[in-house]
């Protein structure tokens, strides 16, 4: 235990350096993914045949394949068609797209769970379809989707660790860097695990606070 603490303290500055990248990866991907998710969910629910088909193919193909393969396509395969992305950018793009597809499914489910009467009432006071979606359907769906969204955020935070495999110096990579020097693989990676665990727990706790704050009373 003492040894673990010593190793952890020694590695801590490296962990913090990595954490900056992990946070950058997670925050930018969840945000870009959110925008993608909302747009795709809306086009799957309210779009015409064409946009429905395109967004369905998008969601199904992303959800049907591993994140790691998607990342490798952006990082290792895109140069073949002349697009060279840095490890960080390739990671953010693939994580955003991946998370976007999952968020789209959660949001779509949430939209579909909203009572039809809400749309009718919005239309009845003279809102257009798009205004109704924006002012009535979407706010309610986003409140309802929060628990699943938190889940997705936690998944994403953990999945950012694969950015290590294309050379982003995030938390995992820093762990590998430290351990390959002091050979304390066990203690170093337990330390890394601990940091992820703490992040995920803070995230879950914080989101449940937010859920309580924005919850529609009685619904």
């Amino acid at each position: 235990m003492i040894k673990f603490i010593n190793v952890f303290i020694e590695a801590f500055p490296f962990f913090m350096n990595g954490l900056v990248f992990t946070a950058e990866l997670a925050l930018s991907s969840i945000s870009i993914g959110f925008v993608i998710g909302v747009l795709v969910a809306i086009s799957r629910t309210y779009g015409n045949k064409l946009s429905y088909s395109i967004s369905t193919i998008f969601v199904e193909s992303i959800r049907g394949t591993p994140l790691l393969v998607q990342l490798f396509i952006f990082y290792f395969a895109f140069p073949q068609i002349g697009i060279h992305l840095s490890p960080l950018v390739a990671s953010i793009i693939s994580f955003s797209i991946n998370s976007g597809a999952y968020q789209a499914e959660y949001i779509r489910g949430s939209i579909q769970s909203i009572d039809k009467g809400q749309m009718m009432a919005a239309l009845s006071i003279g809102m257009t379809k798009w205004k109704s979606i924006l002012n009535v359907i979407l706010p309610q769906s986003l409140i309802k989707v929060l628990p699943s969204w938190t889940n997705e955020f936690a998944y994403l935070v953990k999945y950012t660790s694969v950015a290590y495999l294309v050379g982003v110096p995030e938390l995992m990579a820093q762990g590998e860097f430290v351990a390959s020097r002091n050979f304390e693989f066990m203690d170093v990676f337990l330390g890394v695990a601990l940091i992820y665990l703490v992040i995920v727990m803070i995230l879950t706790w914080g989101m449940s606070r937010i859920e309580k704050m924005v919850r529609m009373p009685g619904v």
Partner: protein
Amino acid sequence: MKVLEVRNLKKRYDSNEIIKGISFEMEKGETVVVIGPSGTGKSTMLMCINRLIEPDEGKIFLNGEEITGSKHPEIFRQRIGMVFQEFNLFNHLTVLDNVRIGPIKVKKLPKDIATKVAIENLKKVGLESRMNAYPAQLSGGQKQRVGIARALAMEPQLILFDEPTSALDPELVGEVLEVIKKLAREGMTMLIVTHELGFARDVADRIIFMENGEIIEQGGPEILANPLKERTKQFLAKFREGR
């Protein structure tokens, strides 16, 4: 000028004709009550009027302007209020926001003016004290009164009511009917679908009896006591038994 004119309205689902050519008119300030058995197409007809359901045939005019065929039904919906059986209040908004969202987002009124309008209408339905509550914190009767205030806030030329008290516990029906009666006295033009025959007799200038997608009989409230058509008699008799 007629506020509402419905000419030969028809609606089909697949091969099933739900509305089979309905025509009637409404004068300004008139309260018309529609009664009839369940599944007759009353709700469908009502929603065809503001085109929440797209009619298949026929023409509908609001103050002489044709609603049917317009590319922008929302323009007419701004001028036609609707009150739903299931209230359909916006669950994520407070009572005040429910009432002023139309004026703000649709009519583009400045927020302070919209708020004034909303509070005025909440007063009318006796709920200004609950304006910061959320729908789920209200009783059914209160919800429906907010629903009415929401419709009123758009200053509509006509309000459609679809069984406004059918989802309410019996002891809450009265407060909602009182509000509607008050609107009738104030000269609001209203088309009301209801099963409350006593209320219909009190409030209606005219009663339309509908069955199987057709108007069977219409006339003043006295037809409730002395219907001319056999079908109307049967319906009313059954209804009284049922009560």
